[in-house]
């Protein structure tokens, strides 16, 4: 661990040692690609990301200011800052986070990192076969609240589907930071799954249920 690294108040000493242990299982390098705006949450995310990557030599941080990396903004920016894309040696892993992944979303953030680092448990063949049936490219945005346990599970399911299927990308959005989305989609309960400007579902789902929902989308 880098002793001079930034220290995020969100990561306690106990959490730090648990994270260091989990990241010790990373088999591949994982890069957090962060897009920052000129706002407080972007600064909070910068410190959080710097602290996280200091916990493992397999974790890297690559950051850019809004407007500096149009290709990132196109892949995972969604026009919402701060945005963090999870990358490995093969490129963007089709998982991103908008906001600071505190609360329950730390679990989904860490899970996405471990998947990108090839450290997640493999899924069974039947599930992989179902996931592979999603043919039409789809970008799934999951609007969450950090205090919602159902949300993090859904984000994990969506991002695992995205990791296994190149046609899918899954983006967590802390809706509390983006009131325009709350009002656009009239979000009163979470999680809300949005794709291509429309609400697909409200409420938690298993990976199996979400995969079935994505397979049923028009054009698939």
């Amino acid at each position, binding site marked *: 661990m880098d002793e001079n690294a930034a220290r995020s108040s*969100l*990561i306690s000493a106990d*959490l730090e040692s*648990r*994270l260091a242990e*989990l990241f010790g299982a990373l088999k591949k390098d994982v890069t957090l690609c962060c897009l920052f705006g000129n706002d407080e*949450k972007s600064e*909070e995310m910068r410190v959080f990301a710097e602290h996280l990557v200091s916990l493992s030599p397999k974790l890297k941080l690559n950051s850019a200011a809004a407007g500096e990396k149009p290709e990132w903004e196109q892949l995972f920016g969604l026009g919402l800052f701060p945005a963090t894309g999870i990358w490995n040696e093969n490129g963007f892993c089709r998982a991103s986070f908008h*906001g*600071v*992944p*505190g*609360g*329950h*979303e*730390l*679990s989904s953030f*860490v*899970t996405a990192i*471990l998947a990108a680092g090839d*450290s*997640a*448990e493999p899924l069974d063949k039947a599930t992989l076969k179902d996931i592979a049936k999603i043919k039409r490219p789809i970008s799934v945005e999951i609007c969450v*609240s*950090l*205090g*919602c*346990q*159902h*949300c*993090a*599970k859904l984000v*994990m399911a969506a991002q695992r589907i995205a990791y296994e299927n190149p046609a899918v990308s899954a983006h967590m959005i802390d*809706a*509390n930071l983006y*009131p325009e989305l*709350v009002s656009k989609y009239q*979000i*009163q*309960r*979470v*999680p809300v799954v949005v794709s291509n400007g429309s609400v697909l579902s*409200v*409420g*938690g*789902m298993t990976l199996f249920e979400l995969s079935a929902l994505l397979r049923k989308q028009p054009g698939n």
Partner: protein
Amino acid sequence: MSLLHEQQPAFSVWCYQTGAFREVTQKDLLGHWSLLFFYPADFTFVCPTELKELAEMYPSFQKEGCEIYSVSEDTHFVHKAWADVSATIRAIPYPMLADPAGVLARQYGVLDEAAGQAYRGAFLLNPESKVVLYEINDMGIGRNAEELLRKLQAARFVAEHGDQVCPAKWHPGEETLTPSLDLVGAL
């Protein structure tokens, strides 16, 4: 003792609705959401305010598939007499149940036996006629129709989607929640 999930027992009462009398039984409450809205007595002053507010929001309740039944311990003739002298009551579109024998008020535990009047209880029943939420206020404490509508919407949502959902309380500018790590079954 909680009344949650209690099934509506058998009953048969008269009601007054927009100028007409008819009988209402427990069967009429099946197949749609029902709000039983108890109030102490006709010809009082706080009641019309609450009943009027509910009347104004009646279309919103109907949109959510909910019928409103106001209930007092007066007879249906007294309801009519009240409607005859009050434009506010005349405009009430929902059925006003008459419970002079206290059958419904006793079933829901809202009867003030000494006064022969009902406390201000509001009971929401699902389409199977089971209580999913309720509030009971003492005589002088009014209820909020808008809040009842919000609760109805939440109850309907839970009925349709199960409990796999969290209510969102948006507080812009709120501090980021302390992270919690729960990876059981996630990896």
